[in-house]
């Protein structure tokens, strides 16, 4: 269900989450600080009013001061975008703020109504951790920590004399009740997380899809610029031939005129191929499924493709071709389409590799674990074309098989192309119920590897199964 994303796109998910938590922290830190200042004030009054201070009470006062300091520390951390530390500061500061008054009270009067009230506010810590981390484990951890804190405060605090009488019958209920309410809160938070996480994922996918569309649009603009260039030069050449003939029609020897016309005709042919490939891509798309599938021998088709490649490519550009394909490997599809795909991939491999560089073509039958209704394994033919040329920058791979897409690198160079080759490869492979993908590090010399999986000949599959 989820879409394939690159590591660069994975960053989009993280960015969305980072922004959300940053906004939350930006709001929470000053708001909680404001509330904390009242606690601070209460502690100052208690400090002045209380004549006898125990070590525990001092610890409480220091805690309040420390939490104030932590809130202050969180502000620049948020500004710097150091979110994890900022969140840690806010959570600890809140925990201390909530906990320290009960410590002070406890030290002064033992377990009493104030302490009891503050136990209720321990819940805030669970909520804060839940919404800031959006993480099940952290939320559960915070709940357990708050449980322990509650148990500790209730069971191990010194009892004030009169209070212990008042609570004598109920102290056994206060603790479990508090803990149950804390878990209730945790359950609510986890439920919210369950709904939130997929919604967040969907938002991320929408953004990625939008980002891809935007890039595609940009590439199309670049493509138009590139086609503009590709068309203008042959048109100028054609005009050159025509004008020369026009101006010299009376004086030029017949043989020379004939030669000029032959050359002009060749330029016209090139121009026609270019225009056809651009304008008729929609038509090719409609005709992609227009074939009757039959067994096609991969080796034979590959040999034919190599022969065609030799015709197209200039002689001076030699390459080091390695073939490793069983001669009886056959696919279930269309001969013409497979040949077109292999020719496109091979000519790309040649086009984007230095002269004489190695190109390896391997083919084999593979077993694919069945995920169909019968659950039976089915056989596939795997064809891999590996070159050691320029490679493809990984960030451009998701768009590579799209119509009219050319790499920014190629648009800037003199390498010609119409951005349709790989698009047609994918179109044809998918028409034959196969898949095609590419792997590349984008490092020059490491090249790229195109892999195709195609259904094998039916008869063979039945025999083997």
């Amino acid at each position, binding site marked *: 269900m989820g879409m394939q994303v690159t590591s660069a796109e994975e960053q989009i998910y993280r960015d969305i989450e980072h922004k959300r938590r940053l906004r939350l922290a930006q709001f929470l830190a000053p708001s909680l600080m404001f509330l904390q200042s009242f606690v601070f004030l209460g502690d100052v009054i208690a400090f002045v009013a209380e004549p006898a201070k125990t070590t525990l009470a001092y610890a409480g006062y220091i805690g309040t001061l420390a939490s104030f300091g932590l809130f202050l520390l969180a502000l620049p951390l948020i500004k710097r975008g150091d979110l994890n530390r900022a969140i840690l500061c806010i959570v600890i500061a809140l925990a201390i703020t909530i906990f320290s008054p009960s410590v002070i009270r406890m030290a002064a009067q033992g377990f009493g109504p104030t302490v009891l009230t503050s136990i209720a506010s321990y819940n805030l810590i669970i909520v804060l951790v839940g919404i800031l981390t959006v993480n099940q484990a952290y939320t559960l951890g915070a709940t357990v920590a708050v449980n322990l804190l509650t148990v500790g405060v209730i069971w191990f605090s010194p009892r004030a004399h009169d209070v212990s009488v008042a609570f004598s019958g109920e102290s056994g209920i206060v603790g479990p009740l508090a803990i149950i309410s804390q878990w209730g809160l945790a359950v609510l938070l986890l439920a919210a997380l369950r709904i939130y996480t997929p919604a967040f994922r969907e938002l991320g996918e929408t953004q990625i899809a939008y980002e891809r569309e935007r890039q595609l649009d940009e590439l199309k603009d670049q493509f138009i610029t590139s086609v503009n260039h590709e068309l*203008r*030069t*042959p048109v100028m050449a054609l005009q050159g031939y025509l004008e*020369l003939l026009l101006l010299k029609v009376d004086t030029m020897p017949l043989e020379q005129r004939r030669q000029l016309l032959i*050359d002009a005709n060749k330029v016209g042919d090139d121009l026609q191929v270019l225009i056809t490939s651009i304008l008729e891509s929609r038509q090719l798309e409609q005709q992609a499924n227009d074939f009757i599938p039959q067994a096609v021998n991969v080796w034979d088709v590959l040999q034919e493709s190599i022969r065609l490649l030799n015709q197209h490519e200039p002689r001076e550009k030699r390459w080091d071709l390695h073939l490793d394909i069983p001669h009886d490997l056959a696919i279930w599809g269309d001969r013409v389409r497979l040949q077109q795909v292999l020719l496109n991939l091979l000519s790309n491999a040649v086009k984007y590799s230095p002269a004489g560089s190695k190109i390896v073509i391997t083919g084999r039958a593979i077993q694919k674990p069945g995920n169909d209704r019968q659950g039976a394994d089915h056989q596939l033919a795997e064809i891999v074309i590996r070159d050691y040329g320029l490679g493809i920058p990984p960030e451009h791979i998701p768009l590579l098989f799209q119509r009219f897409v050319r790499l920014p690198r190629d648009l800037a160079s*003199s390498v010609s192309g119409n951005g349709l080759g790989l698009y047609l490869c994918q179109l044809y492979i998918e028409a034959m119920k196969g898949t095609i993908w590419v792997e590349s590090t984008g490092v020059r010399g490491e090249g790229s590897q195109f892999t195709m999986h195609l259904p094998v000949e039916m008869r063979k599959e039945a025999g083997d199964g």
Partner: protein
Amino acid sequence: MSSPSGAHYTVLIVDDNPWLLQILSTSLAELDNLTIVTARDGAEGLEQFYETRPDCAVIDVKMPELDGFQLVRALRGDSETAQTPIIILTALVQDSARFVGLASGADQFLVKPVKPSELIAAIHRAIALRDEDRKRRLFELSADQPAEES
């Protein structure tokens, strides 16, 4: 070496498209009695320039090795070649390209497609303007000379 009319000029054309090079060299030679030297890329263009010392250079922008703008800058950087008229011939229509072209020191900027006759006219115009410019400067120099001496 160059008289104002009916002059015999040598023109260097640098472009990576072999068809265009072929028809330009044929038609420019046929139509205007120009001697044409050609190069397939910027590096070869630079080499040919120093070898043949053309009266004018027509340079494409998008080329392997050294692109057109780099070639123009290289030629303008050398005082020996700085005065030769240069025509940038390109398929890039964007204004930014135009700006870089002019800033790099080209005399003219033509956008493909251009007919041979138009290119010939542009070559003559560029050479004429340079000649005029040179004469004007020589005149200013000779006018300055006595003033400095006195």
